């Protein structure tokens, strides 16, 4: 984890990144544009973890995939260690792949069922001419698997153990950045805690940076140094984890945090929960101006006409809202925490 105070040197910078999809309308009535990622900018320092949160359909997974090159960007740029990698061809991208890995939610789907665990971890090493038997064994130990696991197939492992295998494979090349796309979301609480602790320990040991994409806000608070909140393809708020969780300024962040149930039976009697009206708007026909205005308790006329933008300094506490501000009630701030 990055130290407080000094800013770590920049590893990844994403500048006005866009990923639009053409979606054909039913009955051959032409097509429309899905702006899955619509002008996203942020920076990630070496050895740091940026938590990217948002509900389904907000574009967080598309953003992760566009950064690693699984989707071709529709616009904007991606810099890794200062190099512009957004324009590079697929072939040239394979070089960056060594520095950039991605782990998905479902380890059942992402591991080749016919390969042994040894082969799964060895494959990226072989491709890059870095294979040795010792290196595979070292990775297995690092993720807490026994050496005997090497000869077995993924089907013989539980979900949590498979995620360990996927992490070992992703970290085998000693990448500088790993994108974790809902990597612990499918796991039970007791196993999830093991995997999160493993990710933190591996980060301390190797200095790898994580882009941690998740919808579970508690997990994101625990693992992240910095946090960005997405809604309808845009980042609505970003900052350090204590800024975003401790004093959220965007009404959506506030509603999201307030919606999370907490393991505290006393809380139900507190009538402080913000209940948003309605659902996510149709992403094929998003509202004009601020995407959140249709559900926002603070929305005014300007919200429909002018799209709010956050601060341009990537390390500032940025809020894309015309009426940012603390919650009226202080009950959900971090100041009064029942022990």
């Amino acid at each position, binding site marked *: 984890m990055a130290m407080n105070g000094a800013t770590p040197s920049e590893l990844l910078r994403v500048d006005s990144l866009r990923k639009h999809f053409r979606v054909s309308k039913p009955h051959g009535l032409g097509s429309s544009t899905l702006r899955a990622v619509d002008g996203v900018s942020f920076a990630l320092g070496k050895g740091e973890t940026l938590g990217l949160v948002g509900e389904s359909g907000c574009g967080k997974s598309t953003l992760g995939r566009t950064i690693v090159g699984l989707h071709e960007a529709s616009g904007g740029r991606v810099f890794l260690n200062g190099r512009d990698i957004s324009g590079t061809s697929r072939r040239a991208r394979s070089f960056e792949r060594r520095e950039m890995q991605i782990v998905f939610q479902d380890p059942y789907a992402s591991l080749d069922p016919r390969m042994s665990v040894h082969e799964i971890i060895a494959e990226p090493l072989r491709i890059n001419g870095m294979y040795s038997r010792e290196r595979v064994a070292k990775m297995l130990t690092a993720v807490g698997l026994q050496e005997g696991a090497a000869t077995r197939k993924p089907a013989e492992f539980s979900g949590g153990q498979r995620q360990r295998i996927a992490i070992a494979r992703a970290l085998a090349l000693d990448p500088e950045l790993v994108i974790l796309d809902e990597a612990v979301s499918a796991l039970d*609480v007791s196993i999830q805690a*093991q995997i999160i602790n493993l990710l933190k320990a591996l980060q301390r040991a190797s200095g790898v940076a994580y882009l941690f994409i998740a919808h579970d806000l508690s997990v994101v*608070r625990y693992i992240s140094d910095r946090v960005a909140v997405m809604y309808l393809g845009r980042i609505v708020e970003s900052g350090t984890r204590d800024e975003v969780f401790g004093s959220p300024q965007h009404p959506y962040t506030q509603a999201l945090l307030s919606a999370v*149930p907490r393991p505290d039976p006393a809380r139900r009697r507190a009538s402080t929960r913000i209940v948003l009206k309605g659902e*996510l708007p149709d992403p094929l026909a998003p509202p004009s101006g601020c995407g959140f205005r249709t559900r926002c308790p603070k929305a005014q006329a300007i919200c429909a006409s002018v799209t709010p933008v956050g601060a341009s300094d990537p390390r500032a506490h940025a809020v894309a809202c015309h009426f940012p501000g603390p919650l009226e009630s202080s009950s959900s701030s971090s100041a009064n925490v029942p022990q």
Partner: protein
Amino acid sequence: MTDQSAILSVRDLTVDVELPEGPARIVDGVSFDVRANEVFGIVGESGSGKSIAMLAIMGLLPGSNMRIARGQVLFRGRDLAVLTAQEMRRLRGGELGMIFQDPMTSLNPVLRVGRQIGETVRIHHPDLSKHGVEARVLELLDLVGIPNPRRRYRQYPHEFSGGMRQRAMIAMAIANDPVLLIADEPTTALDVTIQVQIMELLAAVRARTGASMVLITHDLGLVAETADRIAVMYGGRIMEAASAQALFGAPRHPYTVGLLRSLPELHRSTESLYSIPGQPPSVRDRPSGCVFHPRCGLSNGRAPCEERVPELATAGASHHLAACHYSDETPQWR
């Protein structure tokens, strides 16, 4: 021990599953009562047997390889084992309302939503006219907060969002004024801002009808904020049962303690997180004695944990039950 005011009384419910390698016990001696007007939470990780136990109670065990080996289920004093399949069907969707995680699997995809809810209404009110049924369905759709009920009435489930489908499911579950709602992971597939809406709706429905509810979930936050009393399941058994306050404030089973300590906190930043070592047991090889003993920090390898199954017995306060040989040591160990 049997609570006279209980709506649902489950005693020693035991379910066996026939696996290729032989029979295995998937639910093992589960007992609990659900009282009038209360929310009873059953919380557990995957494979704990929580959903299978509820399916067994409702007479909905999947496939032919699972069967109730022993136990009794009393619903408003009636033994459900003696009911015919038809009587059970009438009970479900009548006095017993059910809400599942994925409405797509419980709603018929080729039937219009209004018609499906109408069927449920009609089964229990055969004398109602066609218009009477439609009026009741529109009233229900409105009640569960579905905007534009007349248009929605004619739509198919796939035209509904996940949250709207769950609302339709709730409309069906409450169509005949149930006295007990059984909600199995009702919001697990939904985003948190929609989850809040659905939980508020369920609370409003309960306030209106006075129905009790069994909430089955893996989400400790959700159960803490919703349930009055809670049972924690692990490896097919109830490990601990207590009021929500007692369970979260002063847990007595080491598994509950471990689970709560494994949860990252939302309202403050922490630097380290406890994790329970090891893996939950599969139904094929459940450990001897206490099913939790190989992962238990309190047991610390003591022989009784491996040798004897601990009874679900009073621990601390009179209505606080824990299935642990050493639950009196938990407060110091915790």
